């Protein structure tokens, strides 16, 4: 699979602050790619460089093989962008904005009109005749996604598309993004993990201006998602907790007030054999033995570390 975006050693320095610090990133074509990171990690800076709004201090960024600092108009012809805080011409109606956006791409005539109508429908704005100044936040964000799609882009870049929306607005925008999967490469930055889990097939986690991990969502949770086992036994759990802490496959052992032991393991197969054996050795009865994988949220918290 070829890459829609390739970033190598990308750095961006603002005075004393290093917003990006030698970042590397590959976004496969056709993927719905979640670009995760806490606030200030460098997500927006990356998107600004990729869209030609800012220049990198060092390093290289390519979109469909083209250097974003040189072939700016060629790159822009292939992409659609929704900024983090999109500004609209409030005096226009939604269809007028889409028509204007289409003309900037050289569009016109009946083909543009058909495209505008299709996107108005996709954004759920059919029958809305008011000017954009009267739109709700959700309507604006859906219009923002629609205008980014006016040129049927090969790559859609969305910067925090759901962060300012209520649950209904978020669902509507995520549904729009999910509907594009397979047709367009979607690269969207966010700090909302549930959004990534819901619509993305690939993910990269950014911390301190560097990508700390990049993988498919499945790989990430299996590679970094230590399994968790909840155990309840008859009798005091303390001796079992001490026993498990000495095991090489146990990465963390916690004891809740209820007496339930919560054990994180990096070798689930070994734990499944050895925990019941340890319970038996200590003369305890096994009441509950429940395994579960860590969510993407837990992986993110570990990898991003909550750092800026």
């Amino acid at each position, binding site marked *: 699979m070829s890459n829609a975006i390739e970033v190598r050693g990308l750095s961006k320095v603002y005075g004393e602050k290093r917003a990006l610090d030698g970042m590397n990133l590959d976004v496969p074509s056709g993927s719905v790619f979640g670009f995760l990171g806490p606030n200030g990690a460098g997500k927006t800076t990356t998107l*600004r460089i990729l*869209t*030609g*709004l*800012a*220049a990198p201090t060092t390093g290289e960024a390519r979109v469909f093989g083209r250097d974003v600092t040189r072939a700016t*108009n060629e790159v*822009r*012809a292939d*992409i659609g*962008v929704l*900024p983090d*805080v*999109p*500004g*609209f*011409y409030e*005096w*226009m109606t939604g269809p007028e904005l889409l028509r*204007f*956006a289409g*003309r*900037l*791409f*050289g569009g016109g005539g009946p083909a543009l009109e058909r495209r505008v109508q299709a996107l108005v429908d996709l954004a759920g704005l059919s029958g809305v005749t008011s000017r954009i100044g009267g739109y709700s936040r959700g309507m604006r964000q859906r219009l923002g996604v629609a*205008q980014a799609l006016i*040129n049927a882009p090969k790559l859609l870049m969305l910067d925090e598309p759901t962060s300012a929306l209520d649950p209904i607005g978020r669902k509507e925008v995520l549904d729009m993004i999910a509907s594009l999967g397979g047709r367009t490469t979607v690269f969207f930055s966010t700090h909302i993990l549930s959004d990534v889990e819901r619509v993305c097939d690939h993910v990269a986690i950014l911390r301190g201006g560097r990508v700390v991990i990049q993988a498919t969502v499945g790989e990430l949770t299996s590679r970094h998602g230590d399994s968790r086992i909840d155990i309840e036994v008859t009798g005091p759990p303390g001796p079992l907790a001490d026993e498990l802490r000495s095991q090489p496959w146990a990465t963390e052992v916690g004891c809740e007030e209820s007496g339930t032991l919560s054990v994180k393991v990096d070798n689930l197969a070994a734990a499944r054999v050895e925990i019941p054996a340890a319970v038996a050795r200590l003369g305890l009865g096994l009441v509950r033995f429940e395994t579960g994988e860590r969510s993407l949220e837990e992986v993110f918290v570990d990898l991003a570390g909550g750092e800026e």
Partner: protein
Amino acid sequence: MSGFGAFLGKELGEIARTWRLWVLPGIVLFLALSGPPLAKVTPELVGTLMSEQQTGVLLRLPDPTYVDAYLQWTKNLSQLVLFAVIIISSGAISSERRSGTAVLVLTKPLSRRAFVLAKFVSHAALLITAVTLGALVTWGVTYAVFGEAPLRPLAEATGAWLALALLFVGLMLALSAVMDSQSGAAGLGFVVFIATSVGGLCRWAAEHKPAGLFGAPSDVVTGQAGPLGWPVVSALALTGALVAAATLVFVRREL
């Protein structure tokens, strides 16, 4: 220049459908309609005031003519209308940057050069249209009030002023590309306005530089104007240089 036509279309549409349609043309047309009648009644008003105050001074004012009406027009252009031009143009680029619309359009195949040039063309088009209409209204009302209104001095005076006003549009565009604050850009514009008008008092500057265009419209009307070739040419050249500077600054700015 990628996207110029589409963006210029947006700019003209914005003029037609927002406050921009009414402010500058409104000011210009109001002044055009009120100037000639005001010129007609001013001597009477002054005379009445003097007699009411019983100063004992006998003031003999000549009967007003079309020249007074034209002078009223040129004074209004050089002060009120130029102030309006400075204020209106001061946010031409920075307002789009602040509102986020610049990012929206500049992530599409619209070059920054086209963006700046379309801004200049739209502001210049509005200015030229409004002031040309205003001059025609002034001419018509002057003729109605005074029964005499030669077109040539009015056209020459208005044309000379337009060259100066375009220079200020270019200046404000450049300041708007450099500064984020609209009021800051407007303030600097006023500083340049004052400095240039003071510079116009210098004979060499008045004969060769755009500063000469400050007093030129009134001098044209009264038949006292010297050759305006150099001031007009230098003003237009400087306008082009300022638009180029605005483009250069904007191309290098990160958004």
